[in-house]
């Protein structure tokens, strides 16, 4: 996207006011999306976003400016603006020499079938297949919408440490939303699939099955009763509850919150912060998963990071600046939504390893509680540890049996307490569906996963007495 000698001149300009660190991040993203609603392809979208951001760090102050124009003149102007934003100091421009071998790559996974090679008609066929399956599932299905999208994102990063790296990531996404209607009102069902691969994802995933499963979920909920209130045991099905860890401790283990002492996990390194059953990993190099990327948005290779080992806190997640301040290597967790954003510490694919229990045994051992077949999104206050997550499909557990479906709602808990209260963890690990993690207004794709597990007590936000 940008030649090495241009990058060197831009970085040199960026250091003119005495910057300790400067970086150029360039991005070229193309996307295609088909949306289908009420039996029609109602929109076909093509998009292109291309630009570069220059970051300049002077002392503890970061200046950032960006441009949609990748010409040298525009990049130099952005470097000047970022340097000015970072401080009013006056120093000599440094000569910057990038890693001579040209941009480094650290690919994870491969793209076997380039989505650009797929005719647009084939996308319409997939959407129709999901729609047909959902409508055929039950006459109470009254509305179906679906979408298929793919994107190719190329990035280039260069900084004053000489780092020069590039990456190209292809993602494909498919979703189905269903509305079912009966006398008691409307209910919704949802299924999605997201892979950091090419079109071969559709060899692995059956979109018709996703359509009928979304329909099943909506129809089941037509007879749902109000969820209970109060604290009780909660069993979460495998591959759907990673968001629990994302909220209960993932955000709290991001080094930017730690640096500001705005996390309940600050100062707890080496301590028991979870049930001894819990080993938590964040792994951006997990090929194919929705949160996978070769290098992060600061140019550092992604890697397998163990955060909690057998309940003991062993590491946080790091971006470049936080790692530099702590005198350690970055962990490949510096990410940004696009070139117009500053990078932050972010999760990638976050998951809990399998445990010793049998999933059926976990339900059978629960006298009265809630079984969550599928979680929705969540959010957390890292400073207090209080977090919520939604249940999209849930059932009552009575006398060790899964019984009636429940209406939607949130559960609320406190991160360290909930982690300590995980008293059963099954041997049936699975990754979950694609997510978008929001932080400070930026959304990035993330994956999660876990085996079936039980939390001995969480507060269920229902309306039943």
């Amino acid at each position, binding site marked *: 996207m940008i030649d090495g000698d241009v990058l060197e001149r831009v970085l040199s300009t960026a250091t003119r006011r005495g910057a300790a660190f400067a970086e150029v991040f360039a991005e070229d993203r193309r996307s295609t999306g088909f949306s289908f609603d009420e039996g029609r392809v*109602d929109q076909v979208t093509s998009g292109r976003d*291309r*630009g570069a951001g220059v970051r300049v760090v002077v002392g503890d102050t970061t200046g950032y400016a960006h441009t949609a124009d990748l010409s040298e003149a525009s990049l130099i102007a952005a470097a000047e603006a970022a340097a000015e934003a970072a401080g009013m100091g006056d120093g000599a421009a440094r000569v910057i020499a990038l890693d001579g071998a040209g941009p480094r790559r650290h690919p994870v996974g491969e793209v076997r079938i380039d989505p650009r090679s797929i005719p647009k008609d084939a996308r319409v066929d997939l959407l129709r297949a999901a729609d047909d399956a959902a409508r055929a599932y039950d006459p109470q299905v009254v509305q179906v919408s679906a979408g298929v999208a793919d994107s190719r994102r190329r990035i280039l990063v260069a900084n004053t440490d000489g780092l020069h790296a590039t990456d190209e990531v292809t993602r494909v996404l498919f979703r189905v939303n269903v509305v079912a209607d009966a006398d008691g009102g409307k209910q919704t069902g949802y299924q999605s699939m997201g892979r950091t691969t090419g079109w071969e994802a559709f060899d692995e995933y059956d979109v018709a099955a996703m359509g009928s499963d979304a329909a099943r979920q909506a129809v089941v909920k037509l007879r749902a009763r109000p969820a209970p209130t109060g604290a009780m045991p909660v069993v979460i099905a495998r591959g759907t509850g990673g968001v629990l860890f994302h909220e209960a401790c993932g955000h709290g283990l991001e080094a930017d919150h730690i640096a500001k002492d705005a996390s309940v996990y600050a100062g707890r390194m080496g301590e028991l912060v979870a049930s001894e059953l819990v080993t938590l990993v964040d792994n951006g190099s997990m090929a194919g998963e929705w949160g996978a990327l070769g290098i992060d948005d600061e140019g550092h290779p992604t890697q397998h990071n163990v955060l909690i080992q057998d309940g003991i806190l062993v590491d946080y997640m790091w971006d470049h600046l936080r790692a530099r301040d702590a005198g350690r290597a970055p962990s490949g967790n510096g990410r940004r939504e696009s070139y117009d954003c500053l990078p932050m510490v972010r999760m990638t694919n976050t998951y809990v390893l399998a445990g010793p229990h049998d999933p059926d045994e976990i339900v059978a051992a629960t006298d009265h509680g809630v079984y969550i077949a599928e979680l929705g999104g969540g959010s957390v206050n890292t400073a207090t540890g209080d977090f919520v997550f939604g249940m999209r499909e849930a059932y009552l557990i009575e006398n060790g049996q899964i019984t009636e479906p429940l209406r*939607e709602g949130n559960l609320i808990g406190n991160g360290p307490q909930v982690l300590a209260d995980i008293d059963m963890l099954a041997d049936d690990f699975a990754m979950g569906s694609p997510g978008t993690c929001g932080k400070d207004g930026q959304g990035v794709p993330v994956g999660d996963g876990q085996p079936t597990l039980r939390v001995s007590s969480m507060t269920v936000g229902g309306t039943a007495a």
Partner: protein
Amino acid sequence: MSADIADLVASLAAAAGPDEQIEAYASRGSSTEVRVWRGQVEHFVSAASEGVGVRVVSGGRTGFAYAGTLEADAVAEVLAEARENVAYGTADPDAGVAEPDGVEPVDIELWSDELDRFATADKIELALELERMVLAMDPRIRVDDANYIDGGGEMAVATSTGIVRHRRGNSCHVSVSTLADDGDETQTGFGYSIGDHPGEFDLEWAAREAVERATRLLGAEKPPSERTTVIFDPFVTAQLLSIIGSTLNGEAVVRGRSLFADRVGDVIASELVTLIDDPTDVRAYTATDVDGEGLATRRNVLIDAGRLDHFVQSTYSARRAGVVSTGNGVRGGYSSTPGTGCLALQLVPGARSRDDLIADVDHGVLVQSLSGVHSGVNTVSGDVSVGATGMTIRNGALATPVREFTVASTIQRLLTDVVEVGGDIEWLPSRAAGVSLVVRDVSVSGTS
């Protein structure tokens, strides 16, 4: 720099062939975000963005493309791609761009020269001043971040049916996030202030809100589970109004996803509820004279003294419903096509202060923040269940702080169970204004 964006969109719209309609939308703007921490600038982001989105409708089929640049070759490519995408759409007799409807945009000023001229150093100083004020108010307080944010720019939209609109606007606000410590315990708060320009900020109020919201919660515990009366504070009510607004959306109605379909003319709320979407009210942060399709915005009374009057409509939803657009075509910028939605909601306020509302409650909860609004609300079924923090109310006064509980009901019941609307309207940096709202019979879930 590229040419005038009004000329650009007009020339794109003029490229329409005899059997096609074209809508072109372009925007160009810049923004500043200053974040300070411990008396220093943590980051300063100076952003400039521009882009164009083109929608082509032909034979009832719609294609769309966009690019985050206004370079001539990219713009030409966008038009070609949008045309190419048309081929894969399905014909929909109601698809099409907006038509001139004879309604002139209201004459409101959305641009402040004072804000435009406001110096960089002064932006930084405002954020630093806010941080200092907060820290001086209470020794238990830390600041997580203090921010000054502004943005300004222009947008233009043109259609081959004869619409050409061009407008500019700018806005600014300050915000601060706080942490209050007491031993091992930490609680959080926030404060903000908006204005047409920085001279209108009320830093003192923003600082006090941020301090009190955090310190008030120190010592908070889970409340007992019960059905009780809840007072939502203005910030929280604004979030609830956004949810309610999304159910009064004409597109959701015609697509079979609204729980209020077929209810026009019915009483769906307490008679105390009059809900208005009015982007022509300049006090609203999201005030605008033109919608995302280039039509004039207007004042729409959606719920009138409890009775559902009408839904908000865009050109598409209106055609399907056999009505006219209410000027509620919304778009997220050049990268998306217009949808349908509320632009600037407000509840007609009552007369009494928040203290007076509290004084009337023997037993209840004041809710000061919500969490999980996106995961715990289903606008199709109406289920609402969200995390909350606040204070218990006992015998007409705030009693003890509470956290880690949920409040739950349904959208339908929340509307009918409104007991009183406060007189304390607050203009927030969001699509809805806030006001204190008293609702009876809400499920609070905490300890068993």
